[in-house]
Structures are given as structure tokens and as C-alpha cells.
């Protein structure tokens, strides 16, 4: 396990370095550097002022030199400032990351519970399998943002039970604002879990050790919980590992639909608001979290099933 971590961490670092370089040059292709934006927003600024601003902030340097200066500062721990929020980037990033982790964490938990329950139903009662299949197909094909809009129409517009989105005001309970976004992400994820849980469980339930447990007189409940489920959990963890990136993407769309503050919305707003330092750092942080989550899922998988050798 240690060997795997030692192997993966440099790979993660290299991926991040390459991603930051690629993103830096992509940003170089976006319209509007900070000086020309200042020029647009303040009519009293002359072209000479803009040129002086560019020289002051080093924007007249070539892209590569600016990248090296930025990367050097980042390695020294200087994250810099956000233009959009007029705050240090760290002060903007951490609350957003926490909010997204709460959202995605609750959604994954709910999706795993509901998915395994549905999958178990399909495996234990084969007659219900087509129904579970249909629900899974629906969850897979349903665009997350559409489900979000439909939930808003139903629960916020017609029934008025839950807020349509936004952030909870300080001092108020946060959970009503969490219900619809969590449901939106969880429904999409649940589909895949249900399918895989059904496949894995029905495969496990036909294995010889299940028959032998039954012959020894173990109850059906014990067989399911003690013998079949732990083994069926391994492919589910694989799925979770593969899905870490999709989850972050889902959070971006869902946060935009529900106007919920978080990493996804932060990234979107910073790209739209030409706040490129914040956009870049948010992207790198999201990528880092995704890759660490994948690594953690891989480790958990190995711990559950020691037969999975170290590649």
C-alpha cells in the first residue's frame, strides 16, 4: 500500500503541474487581461495608463515567464488575491471547498444507501429487476440540471416547502438548502450504484460459500449482511473511485442551478468574471481533491479485497 501511495503521489503532482501549464495557456487565449478590463470599466484611464498598469503587474512579460513567476509564488505558499471578491484567494477557497464537500459527501452517502437497497431488491427479487433497470436507465439519462429545475418547480414553486436555492442566511439552519441539491446529485449517482450492486450481489449469492453458509444453517439476513454484501462492496468502491471526477462535475452544475456557493460555482463565476488567478487555483484544488479521492478509494478497495495485487 505504501508503495502504491509513493508511486501515485508523484504522478498526481506531475498531472497538476501539466494541468496548470495547459490551463495557463488556455487562459492566455481568453479575452480581456486585467489592464484592458480596467480600461473598459474606467473611462478616464488612457492607453498610457493601461500600458503602465501592464508593466506594473508584469502583464507585458511573455506568458511562460509569467507562468514561472506564478508557479514559483504558489510553491512558496503565496496564493495571491482574488480580483472578483477582493479577498485573499485562500479565504475564498476554503469555505467553498467545505460547502462542496458537505454537498457531495451527503449525496454520495445517500446514493450509496439507496443504490445498494435498490440493487439488493433486484438481486433478491429477480421479478423486480426490470423495474430497477428502468430506474437506473432513467437516472443515467436524466441530465442533472434538468432534474434540479424540475425539483425546484415542484418543491419550491408549486408546493413552497423548500427554498429554490441560494445560501442559508447566517444563523439559520442549513439543511433545507441542502435537500434539493443533494437529491439532484444522489439520483444520478444512485442509478449506477443500483446496477452494479444488483450485478455484484446476484453473482455473490450464487457462489459456493453462500450455499455452504446456507447448509450450515445461517439465516438469510446473516448471509446477506455478513457474506454477500462485503464482497459485493468491492466493485462499488471501484465505481466510486472512477466517479470522483464526475461527482465534482455534478457539483458544478448542481451548484449553478441552485445558486449554492461552492467550488463549482466559484470556478464558474471566476471564469465568467475574468478572475483568472482564482479560476486557476480553484481548478487545481478541484483536480487535487478528485485525484486524492480516487487514491483513497483505490486504497480502500485493496484493503477490502487483498487479492487485488499491487500493479
Amino acid at each position: 500500500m505504501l508503495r502504491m501511495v509513493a508511486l501515485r503521489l508523484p504522478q498526481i503532482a506531475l498531472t497538476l503541474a501539466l494541468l496548470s501549464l495547459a490551463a495557463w495557456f488556455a487562459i492566455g487565449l481568453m479575452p480581456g487581461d486585467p489592464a484592458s478590463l480596467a480600461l473598459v470599466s474606467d473611462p478616464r484611464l488612457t492607453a498610457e495608463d493601461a500600458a503602465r498598469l501592464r508593466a506594473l503587474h508584469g502583464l507585458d512579460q511573455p506568458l511562460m515567464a509569467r507562468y514561472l513567476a506564478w508557479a514559483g509564488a504558489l510553491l512558496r505558499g503565496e496564493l495571491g488575491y482574488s480580483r472578483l471578491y477582493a479577498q485573499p484567494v485562500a479565504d475564498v477557497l476554503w469555505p467553498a471547498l467545505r460547502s462542496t464537500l458537505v454537498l457531495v459527501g451527503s449525496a454520495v452517502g445517500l446514493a450509496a444507501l439507496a443504490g445498494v437497497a435498490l440493487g439488493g431488491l433486484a438481486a433478491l427479487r429477480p421479478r423486480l429487476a426490470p423495474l430497477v433497470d428502468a430506474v437506473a436507465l432513467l437516472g443515467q439519462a436524466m441530465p442533472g440540471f434538468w432534474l434540479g429545475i424540475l425539483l425546484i418547480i415542484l418543491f419550491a414553486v408549486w408546493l413552497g416547502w423548500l427554498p429554490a436555492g441560494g445560501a442559508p442566511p447566517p444563523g439559520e439552519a442549513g439543511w433545507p438548502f441542502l435537500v434539493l441539491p443533494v437529491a439532484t446529485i444522489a439520483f444520478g449517482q444512485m442509478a449506477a450504484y443500483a446496477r452494479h450492486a444488483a450485478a455484484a450481489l446476484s453473482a455473490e449469492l450464487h457462489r459456493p460459500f453462500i450455499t455452504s453458509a446456507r447448509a450450515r444453517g445461517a439465516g438469510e439476513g446473516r448471509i446477506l449482511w455478513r457474506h454477500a454484501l462485503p464482497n459485493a462492496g468491492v466493485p462499488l468502491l471501484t465505481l466510486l473511485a472512477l466517479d470522483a471526477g464526475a461527482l465534482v462535475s455534478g457539483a458544478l452544475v448542481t451548484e449553478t442551478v441552485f445558486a449554492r456557493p461552492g467550488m463549482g460555482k466559484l470556478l464558474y463565476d471566476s471564469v465568467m468574471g475574468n478572475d483568472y488567478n482564482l479560476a486557476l487555483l480553484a481548478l487545481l484544488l478541484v483536480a487535487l481533491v478528485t485525484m486524492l479521492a480516487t487514491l483513497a478509494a483505490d486504497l480502500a478497495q485493496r484493503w477490502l479485497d487483498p487479492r487485488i495485487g499491487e500493479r
Partner: protein
Amino acid sequence: MTRLRLGLALLALLALAAIAAPLLEGWTGRDAFAPDLFARYAPPSAEYPLGADELGRDLLLRLLHGARVSLGVGVAAALAAALLGTAIGLLAAWRGGWVDAALMRLADGLLALPALPILVLLAAVDPAALGLPRGALATDMLRITGILVLFGWVGVARLARATAITLLASDYVRAARALGVTEAGVLWRHVLPGLAAPVAVASALAVAGAILAESVLSFLGLGIQPPVPSWGNMLANAQEAVFAAPLAAVWPGLAILLAVAACALVADGVARRR
């Protein structure tokens, strides 16, 4: 088998709808772009079967027009991704060694990254900086397709590589080589046909993924720009008007759902036939 037929029938229906858009326009004498401010948020009626949007444009006509954009981008991106992915997978399997290792590490890296945030970043790139006209539909479609291909080839390439490695080690490939068939001949005649089925499955899933991704980007305002309708940007408009015309949010989403489900059914059907 029934899945395959059902999926193909659904796709054919959607393609027909896309083709029918101008016909219906000619027949009703209205088009999908002309605003009519007297008909803002008109409820469904004989004149506007699905109602009208915030500028009084016919939602049904826009939905049909959106099918052209959404299906076009989806199919184009998936085809390009399938071609690129097959080529890369085949190359990796055939050359092996460091070429294989480098390509597969690249694929792993792309797969590990959160795609959508990167798509958002890329979608904001100024087309003018790359020498393309800004705001034209063709530019938008090309840009979205290119971005989707960038991530779409990975899945196809991994499948194609895995299959190609088994095929290259098979006896009939060894026999062909022993008979003096050139390497190009081996790949073209003996390996490529064997890749058809897995690549077809991966491509059908890629079409579904591309349609979803295009709708997400358009929904976020980074994809197809209004006034050209796509299912994604229609949903974005509908969300803004969620109190005035809640039903307007139903149809584009249903169209995306049908298209993606049809592709998934086709992929499932092909996979089960093997």
C-alpha cells in the same frame, strides 16, 4: 435485441424531428427565431402546441431546431472521438513499450481529472485568438465538438487497446504474419474488424455523453449561443422563467433524456448481442 431496436427507433425518431424542423416552419409559416412579443409565455394551444418562450417564439419549433444542434454536436463529437480513440488504442497496442505507457498514462491523467470544470475553463477561450470568427454557429459547434473530443477519446482508446492486444496475440494474426502479410495489412484486415463491436458500444455511450455535455455547457451559457436554440440553452431560459412558464422547462429536458436513454439502450443492446 429489443433494447437495440428500441434505442435505434428512438434515435431515428429524433433524427426525423431534426430534419422536419424547416418543413414544419414552412408549413406553419412561422420560424424558430422570429420574436412575437404579444405571445410571450403563451400557454400551449393549437397555434403554439408547446407554448411560447420569453420572446414569444414557438417552443415546438425551437425544440426541433435544437435537435439539429444537439444531435449534430453529439454525433460529430462521438465520431471524432471514436476515430481518434481507435487510432490511439490501436497504436498503443501495436507499438507497446514506452509509446503504450505514455499514451495510457495520458489517458489515466485525463480520466482522473474533473472534466466539467476544465470544459468550463476551455469553453471561455476566445475563438478570435485562434483565428476563428466569433459568435458564428459553426464556430460554436466546432469549439464544443473539439472540447468534447479532447476528453471523449479516452474511453474508446482504452477499450480499443485492450481488445487489440488480445487480437494481436491471437493465432490467426501470427499465421498472417508468418504468411508475410505486412504490418499495415495485419492491422487493417485482421485487427480493425475485431474492434468494431467494442468501439460501437463505446461510441454509442460517447454520443450520450457528448449530448449531455453539450447541453450542460449550453445551459451554463458556454456552449451554443442564443438566438440559435439548443436543448441546453433552452433550459437555461426556462429556468429564468420558472415562475411564469414552468412547463417550458419540461420539454427540452425530456428531449435530452430521450436522446441519452436511446444511446444507452443502443450501447446496451450491442454489448448484449456479442
